[in-house]
């Protein structure tokens, strides 16, 4: 469980605040989809890659919005970055799912999707992983939440919501597909 997500949440001792509901998430994703189309002058050469695990539902939502807006079927892949992280020596090894990238990324405009941008280390790992798969013409980063505290020079191209947080706080994104509702929650931590 990442620090971006909640560790050991217990309703009796933890106060969760909803900072985005389903409608706000829908609007943010719709805006991001329009921004992607505007910046890339359409959706013809796009592929979308979601960072496992919670970037994947967002990637699929964006693909479906792009299809609705532009009528273009944008391929979606999922990327596991566990083997590219820089903190394996201090991190628990855990079960990982295989990456599924059923297309060639070479010369494509890749939209890399993750739910929360925090330290930037996951994004760095994802960039390395994508580079091992081919040579995209461009990689752009889309996140639902930018919570600050970056440790690397990483900046998202598309942001659903900028959410200033304290380091000890946790930001947790819920997706209907995996957890039954769309919501962004913030908890105070200890």
């Amino acid at each position: 469980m990442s620090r971006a997500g909640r560790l050991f949440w217990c309703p009796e001792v933890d106060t969760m605040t909803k900072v985005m509901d389903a409608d706000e998430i829908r609007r943010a994703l719709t805006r991001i989809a329009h921004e992607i189309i505007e910046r890339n002058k359409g959706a013809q050469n796009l592929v979308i890659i979601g960072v496992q695990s919670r970037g994947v539902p967002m990637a699929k939502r964006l693909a479906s919005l792009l299809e609705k807006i532009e009528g273009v079927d944008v391929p979606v892949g999922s990327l596991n970055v566990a083997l590219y992280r820089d903190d394996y020596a201090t991190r628990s090894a855990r079960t990982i799912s295989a990456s599924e990238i059923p297309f060639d990324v070479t010369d494509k405009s890749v939209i890399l999707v993750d739910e929360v941008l925090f330290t930037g280390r996951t994004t760095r790992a994802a960039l390395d992983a994508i580079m091992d798969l081919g040579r995209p013409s461009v990689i752009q980063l889309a996140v639902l939440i930018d919570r600050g505290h970056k440790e690397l020079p990483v900046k998202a191209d598309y942001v659903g919501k900028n959410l200033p947080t304290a380091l000890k706080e946790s930001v947790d994104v819920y997706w209907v597909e995996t957890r039954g509702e769309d919501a962004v929650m913030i908890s105070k931590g200890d």
Partner: protein
Amino acid sequence: MTKLTRKDILGLQDMSTDEIYLILETAQSHKEILGRPVKKVPILRGKSICTLFYENSTRTRTSFELAAKIMSADTTSISVAGSSINKGESFKDTLLTLEAMGVDLFVIRHGAGGAPHFAARTVKSHIINAGDGMHEHPTQGLLDMLTILENKGKFDGLKVLVVGDIMHSRVARSNLWGLSKMGAEVRLCGPSTLLPAEIEQLPVKVYTDLDDAIDGVDVVNVLRIQLERMNRGFFPSVIEYASMFGVNKTRLMKAKSDVLVLHPGPMNRGIEITPDVADGDFAVITDQVTNGVAVRMALLYLLLGGGGNVVSD
């Protein structure tokens, strides 16, 4: 279960079903890397792995080295020939010397059963048993299990026959511990001279007639006849062994129609397995080799992947 807490991989006898599933799931996810144009991930950069083989090996050693290199670890190979072992250096001193050079993980093959267990008590580095005497060969057992799981989707209720020189086979032992633990029915078949004493105490069904043993099985794992051991009168002749215990197409008809044929290699074609079976539709022998790399990648990842929690995003 999401992480492996043990320091060493010494055998499947003392491994829990959760640990086995964790290793197999991790191996399945690592297989995707083997199909990439760039077969390299940086996860074990800076880690040092030593393969220490006191017995001959081609596929096990190569497979471990490839797995380590794919994951960006540095590998060192020590074989008995040309090393200080020939000057009389003890196993313990060899281990301590190499550990002092910064080896994080040893892959050990040794003719003496229990040698990797001794190594695990001697050094702080991780140990993976790559075959110890007639005891166990856990990574072979795991890759056999991964091959079966990929093709059958389950272990529970499967009938798995292991046929050949059971007595001398560490592969047979790792297979029987791993598969029986996961709910498969394990059958062992071989000449009575090549069945170990007190075999009835193991969780297996024992046969000395291959035609009976093969009836209705889902998987046949054919063991190599170790010709180097066969000068001790275990059976009258290789020809007789081939006729009584060789797996051929006619015998295979008695197994299930979707039977899998496994062989740990190297094969003695025409002795324990006929070429038409070895190269036939039911054989998954090359899949086993691929799965061997994936299983070893998984073990290196799970053992050297660190411990404790860390921040991430």
